[in-house]
Every structure is written in C-alpha cells, then in structure tokens.
C-alpha cells in the first residue's frame, strides 16, 4: 500500500487511552492537516505513526509497514519533525550537527560528520533557504529558522513523508506563512507526502489539503471544504464564535 492506513486505533499513555477507535486512510500523494482542540490526541497520533507509541488495539500501516514492529524502516520513510517546546536550547548544538544527525542516525556508529555528509547538509540547507547557517548554534536562530533546520534534518533522510507536529506554533503570521510555503514547495516539487498537526488552516496556504478533525476519535475526515463547516466545528470547538464571516475557534481543551 502506498499511503497511510489507520483502523480502529486506540492508543495513549500509561494505559490511559487518548485516542479511541480512530480510523482513516490516505493514498500517496497526500497532504493531511490534523486539527483539534488541545488534548484531542493530535501529537499522540503522530507519535504512533512513527513508532514511538505502541497501539493498545487497532491497526496502523505506514506505506504498508507496522510502525511499532518495524520502527527502523518506518523512520526511514516517514521523518518526524517534533515541536520546538521539547527541545533544550541551552545545549550548544550547531545547525550542521542537527541536520547531519538526520542522516547519520540511520547508520551504525561511529557517527562522524564526513566531508560528504557536510556536502549533503549544505544541499538540504539550501533547499530550506538556510544556506550558510551551518556553524550557527540552534539557539542563535529565530523560531522560523529553527523550524527550517528541523525540517532539513528530516529531509536529509529523503523520506517519503514528512510528519510535522505543529510546525506553525510559536511563530508570527509572516513566519508561519513562509514556513507553510516551504512545506507546500517540498510537497509539490519533491513529491513528499505531508502529515501535520495544526490549530488552524493558515490563510496563506494555496493547496487544498485533506483534513482530519480529531476529538479523541475521528470526528470528521475529508477534503477541507467538506470538513470545515460551521455545524461540524461547533461540536468540536464549543467556544467557537463567528465574527464578520470568520469562524474563530478559540483554544478549547478536551475534557478528560
């Protein structure tokens, strides 16, 4: 199968399910945005897709592979870009080291940054408009630049899919739009499938992605114009308001 298939997935932490009986499937090429309130299980879904979490029940296949049993292979085809909030910036790591690790982690030790690896790092940094930043420390970069570096670290693995956890979080509107344009460019030009979580569909997005609305289970799944409808959204975001034709979702949180 050339895509992602999730059937009856129940998964969580410490025996407590976060997602219950989740089902959806995607055929490559796909660009999926996963939306939902805080605590709806968006990040949990991504972690399950890359084999960090073991499903309690149900079936998950990423390009035909079971992510939990065949983690190594899945991580070669689906590269995960985590949220910035889990990163410890005080550790002095350079851009080159971060991007190189994306490639070297696929290889056995000793993991040394050779001249060839440096070349590949330069190429992929150019792709995300970060050429010349190799020797900069991660904590010297802006939020948008940091996201680009993490994307470069994923891209250097030449994955079939990029799995991004809230790439637009903690960025201002301009930086968020620039980042979305970059992700769209990667999808269109390189044919890389994309799954990303978000609290919104950025208004500057030009593609029409698939949308998965989560509320600890599949609430709605389909094309963006089928899912982003007032009668659906109001059930997931009870605090939603409408102003001058715009739907304001607010920041609702799923009640446990």
């Amino acid at each position: 199968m050339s895509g992602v298939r999730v059937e009856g997935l129940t998964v969580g932490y410490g025996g407590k399910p976060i997602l219950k009986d989740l089902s959806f499937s995607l055929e490559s090429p796909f660009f999926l945005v996963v939306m939902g309130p805080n605590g709806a299980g968006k990040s949990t879904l991504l972690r399950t897709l890359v084999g960090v979490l073991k499903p309690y029940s149900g079936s998950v296949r990423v390009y035909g592979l079971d992510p939990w049993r065949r983690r190594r292979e899945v991580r070669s085809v689906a590269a995960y870009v985590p949220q910035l909030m889990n990163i410890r910036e005080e550790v002095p790591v350079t851009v080159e080291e971060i991007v190189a690790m994306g490639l070297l982690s696929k290889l056995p030790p000793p993991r040394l940054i050779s001249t060839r690896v440096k070349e590949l790092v330069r190429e992929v940094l150019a792709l995300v408009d970060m050429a010349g930043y190799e020797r900069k420390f991660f904590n010297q970069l802006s939020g948008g630049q940091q996201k680009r570096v993490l994307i470069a670290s994923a891209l250097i693995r030449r994955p079939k899919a990029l799995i991004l956890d809230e790439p637009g979080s903690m960025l201002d509107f301009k930086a968020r739009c620039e980042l979305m344009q970059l992700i769209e460019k990667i999808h269109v030009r390189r044919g890389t499938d994309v799954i990303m979580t978000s609290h919104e569909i950025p208004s500057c997005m030009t593609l029409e992605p698939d949308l998965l609305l989560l509320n600890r289970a599949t609430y709605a799944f389909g094309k963006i114009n089928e899912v982003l409808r007032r009668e659906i959204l109001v059930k997931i975001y009870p605090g939603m308001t409408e102003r001058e034709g715009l739907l304001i979702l607010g920041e609702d949180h799923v009640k446990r």
Partner: protein
Amino acid sequence: MLSADFMTIALYLTALGGGLLAGSISPALAYSRSILLGITLMHSVLAGALVGVYLGSATSLPLSPSIVAVLFAVTASIATAEAVNRGVPEDSAISAVVSIFVAISIIFTYLVATQVPLGVSKAMGYVFGLSSIVTLNDLLRILIALVIVVPLSHLFWYEYKFISFDPEGAEAMGLSVRFYRYLYYTLASVAATSLAMTLGVLLTHIVMTLPGLFSLRRKYIYPYRLSYLVSVAIVLGGYLLASPLNIPPSGGVGLLAAVTLTYLLGVRHER
C-alpha cells in the same frame, strides 16, 4: 619498601588519571542536566562500600568493597535512568533512589560499627578519600576506569549530546534514548566509584560536574578539551597546592574547585 620518589610520582599519576577520568564524563552529566545524578552516585557508592565491608567480614566471600560499590553505583544509576525513561522527573527519581541507598547506608553503618572492627573507618575512606596514600591498586583502578570510560564517552558523544538536546526527535530518528542514557549513567558510575576511593564521594561529585559546566557555559561544540583541562587543573593543581599548605590533597582539590566555581559564577553568560 617503596621509595618516597615512587610514592610521589604515583600520587601525581593518580591525580592526573583522576582528572582525566572526571573530565571524560563531566560533559555528559552537564549537557544532559544530570548533575544531580552525582548525588545518587555518592550515596550508592557509600552504601556499596559499607555492604562490601560488612559482607567481606561477616562471610568468607572474597568481596572487595570497591567492586560492591561499583555494582551499587551502576544499579542506582540504571534505576534512575529507567525511572526517567518512564516519565518520572529526574529530580524525583534521584530523590527516590537516594532515599533507598541512604536507608541501606544507615542499616549497614550500624551493622559494620557493631560487628566489624575498624569497618566504619574503612568505609569512611570513600567519603573523604585516601588521596594522600596511593597504592599500585589505586593506580590500576584509575587506569582500568580510564580505559573503559574515555573511549566510550568519546565514541558516543555526538549521539548523547543530540539526545540531551532533543530526546523526542532523537527517538523518532531511531536513536535509542534508553540505551545511551544507560550507557552514560553506567560510565558515570564506574568513574565515580574509582574517583571516590581516591578523592572521596564529596569531592568526586564536584570534580565530575565542574568541568562539564565550564564547557557548557562556554558553549563548546566539542567540550572535551576544556573539560580535561579544567578537571586536570583542579585535581592535579589541588594535589600540588596541598603540599606547601600542609593539608590533605583532597583539601587542595576542594580549594581549587571552590575558586573555579566562584569564577564560573562571576563570568557573564553569553547567549
């Protein structure tokens, strides 16, 4: 009888080896914010030494307190690492593990004090160190620890630094966060136990943390040069300083460590 010259050379060689050993593991502790692990190691080494002294005396088993101390330190560090891997905050995990080893220390201090003549003073050698007396065994112990700890800590440094930087991303890339955490905690245990017999557990904690903190503060990509320099300067310098001041060598190490820490606190942190 060994000559005074030999004893002096052996003393400084042990100091040099101890400095290199501390310098090789210190960056890993500082970069992964595991400085408090030193507290776990201190208590587990002491508990292990007491258990070793007691068992060696109460049974006919050929048990060395040093070996038991290593086993206790490794167990304590792996227990801490496992708790952290399971989502327990590191300070809570360390507190829980320390309380277990403190309890063991209290029980065996009582047993050793009542049943093993001179046993407590032998075990207390681990607290304050026997740094002014060096035997071939001490030199050998430091050398073996160096052979184990130095190559492994260098070999996997890049991975460990990355895991310290972004554990979630590292896991998703396929790096085993658990494996590397176990490895470095075990290496820290081996280094701590070897150093404790020479410097004592109190100073061991200091010399294992200061050099790494120095490198982290200076934001070195590859921190070992500075870490080795600082740790060797503190330990060897402390030994050299002790002679004219007529104090125990570990006292000299403590003085230099205090000066280094004061300097570290005084230097403006550059972002």
